[in-house]
């Protein structure tokens, strides 16, 4: 994907987009992970 972006965009813009993409994935992982195990969190009293 990085190489694909580099063919159309300047390197700085491509780097920012890639960083945002990874950041979004990490945030989504945390959100979905907590959401899918909400029952477990409630069970241990968090």
């Amino acid at each position, binding site marked *: 994907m990085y190489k694909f972006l580099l063919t159309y965009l300047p390197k700085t813009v491509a780097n920012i987009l890639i960083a945002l993409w990874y950041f979004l*994935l990490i945030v989504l992982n945390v959100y979905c992970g907590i959401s899918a*195990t909400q029952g477990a969190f409630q069970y241990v009293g968090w």
Partner: protein
Amino acid sequence: MKLLAEVILFAIPMVLLAWTLPRKYVLVSQIAITGLFVGYQSPLSLLILTTITFGNYYLLHKAVLRKSIKIAISLCILVLLIVSAKILFTLHNHWIIPLGMSYYIFRNIHYTIESYHGRIQDNSLLFYLAYNFFLPVLIIGPINRYPEFIRDWQRRRFNSEYFSLGFQRILFGMSKIVIIGNYLLTSKSAAFIVNLDASNVWLKAYLETVTLVLNAYFQFAGYSDIAIGISLLLGFRVMENFTFPFLASNMQEFWSKYHMSLSAFCRDYIYTPIASYYRKPMLGVVATMIIIGLWHEITLPFLLWGALQALGIYLAFLFKNTPSSWTTRNLGRVFVFNYFCLSCVIIDYNELGKAFEVYKILFFIN
């Protein structure tokens, strides 16, 4: 999910030691950490893994017997072990199969056959132990190959591109498991299906079938991505396990993209010998697919599932001369996706009777 978190936890010191220790201690550290991990999960599993590894190595390289006899004994023991384990653990529902046994037995069979053909260049005990005690692929594959493992070890040096790719694969794998598998295909889709109108019986059954298969695929592909990612962090390139299987336009292509390490193993060690000995490729396909089915579990549903996969490949063989166009390729993709999902109904439920009830709904049979 807990097991996956523990694999990642044990992989962290392994990666740190892999690039800080002197080279001669790296494999020893990997073996020790994997041993600790397996022992922590189940001491019995560690005992079985250690016994099989040392036993097979001793038999192949130290026992004073004719080469063909050693190979025959090794293969018989390995096959008997996996078959008896699968039968025992199918009969006793509350038993759990030793950690990673389905995979490391196949790795040992591969090593034994390659050893017979003289394709094992370096047969030191340390490399063999490191191959069998390689944490990333131990539990759920991919079934990596010994020559590639040794080649990667010999060429291994720190490469920032591999390192970055490793982190990327781990993130993608986590996303497949957590976002797509656990969140969308389990929590959200289950709520959507439950809230569907009761009159939509067909839609409910179809969506349940599709989500079960997709969830299994994303979980498995995610675990494989994480295994490949951790291996890259350690400096090893492990073979891919999935390359967009649901974009395949026929079942033959599908099985070259789905669980590739298992299908490649079965192609090399089951299909090719049978097809070339009997000169009947379809006989090789049927035997291979049934063995793939039984490898999951030795039960009638998995045997029928394997036979259905063989039928799918036979259909691909029948239509192989159909001219390829945009329409035929996409129709093929729709067929492959639905055929695989429908064939999995037979293994989705514990009883065949329940599976046939779902088939009745899906095929509008009253």
